[in-house]
């Protein structure tokens, strides 16, 4: 094998990520999203000022993976906690990291109003069209026809409506400065997602209001697929309904 002692490191784990194994399922894209958030924080040099708000969901233990201060919110309330932290300590860099139950179901009031007030926070929204932690129930973002443990016959629009597009919804508000949807299913998308996340944090460093990054993600276990099959399923089924791109960008004239 090559002797790595005299070689340059081209890619390694960033400082703010703990040297720890996660509890996430094999192939779960939470791991990728966590890395991108940690890298953004480290590259911007704000790890010392960062305060994360962990949600209820698979990523409830996010504080065990990122070495920054954290608060743990009740389900859906992370944007309200973030508001409290940022208002009393405006110098902190505050972010929430939430799943589709947390943000798009129980927490819809909190996210809409934090966005509407233009709270100077960064929100990372993990959309995997299902409830992971509780065992695969329907999420507000579950697709029509998608089978989950509470839609065993497939989601029926007649019965329970359509998946919610949160990025689009929030982009109708005047205050937010940056609203974008990216995906974690392919290397090229992961690179775009990293740029979006970094910008969402950079905006807060610059004192700009509300930045929001929705990340299409996989849940191999509850979708009943292998990790690689899940990436394909995301590409074929989620992207047509949840288009990628910027919905609002104060800098970009959007």
């Amino acid at each position: 094998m090559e002797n790595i002692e005299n070689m340059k490191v081209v890619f390694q784990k960033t400082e703010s990520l703990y040297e720890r194994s996660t509890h996430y399922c094999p192939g779960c894209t939470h791991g990728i999203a966590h890395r991108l958030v940690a890298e953004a924080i480290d590259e911007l040099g704000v790890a010392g000022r960062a305060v994360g708000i962990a949600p209820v969901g698979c990523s409830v233990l996010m504080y065990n993976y990122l070495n920054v201060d954290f608060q743990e919110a009740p389900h859906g309330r992370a944007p309200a906690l973030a508001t409290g932290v940022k208002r009393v300590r405006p110098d902190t860099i505050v972010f929430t990291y939430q799943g589709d139950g947390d943000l798009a179901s129980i927490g819809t009031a909190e996210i809409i109003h934090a966005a509407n007030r233009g709270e100077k926070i960064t929100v990372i929204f993990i959309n995997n069209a299902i409830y992971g932690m509780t065992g695969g129930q329907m999420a507000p973002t579950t697709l029509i026809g998608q089978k989950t443990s509470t839609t065993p016959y497939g989601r029926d629009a007649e019965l329970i409506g359509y998946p919610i597009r949160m990025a689009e919804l929030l982009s109708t508000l005047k205050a937010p400065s940056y609203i974008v949807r990216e995906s974690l299913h392919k290397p090229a998308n992961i690179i775009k997602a990293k740029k979006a996340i970094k910008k969402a944090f950079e905006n807060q460093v610059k004192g700009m209001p509300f930045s929001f990054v929705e990340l299409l993600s996989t849940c191999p276990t509850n979708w009943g697929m292998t990790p690689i099959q899940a990436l394909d399923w995301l590409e074929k089924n989620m992207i047509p309904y949840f288009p990628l791109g910027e919905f609002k960008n104060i800098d970009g004239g959007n």
Partner: protein
Amino acid sequence: MPTVRIKKDTCKGCELCVNFCPKKVLMMSDEYTASINHNPPDETLDDLKLEGEINAKGYKYAVLAKESGCIGCATCARVCPEVAITVYK
């Protein structure tokens, strides 16, 4: 020559790195042991002692099967949900 190091016991066998490597230098441990039994590998991997195909967690894990083909693009590292891969050039 670029290379990678994969943390064997961190790997959860999701196969994303194997799937996305543009030069196909990575293999899962069971595929690898099967391949070296039938076809000798390109290089001698004396440091790499495969103590069976399963790591401490019980997963099949990813291995660098063809080090000479690695271009150091770090695609594997970027796609790994466990951040188990370090890339060197």
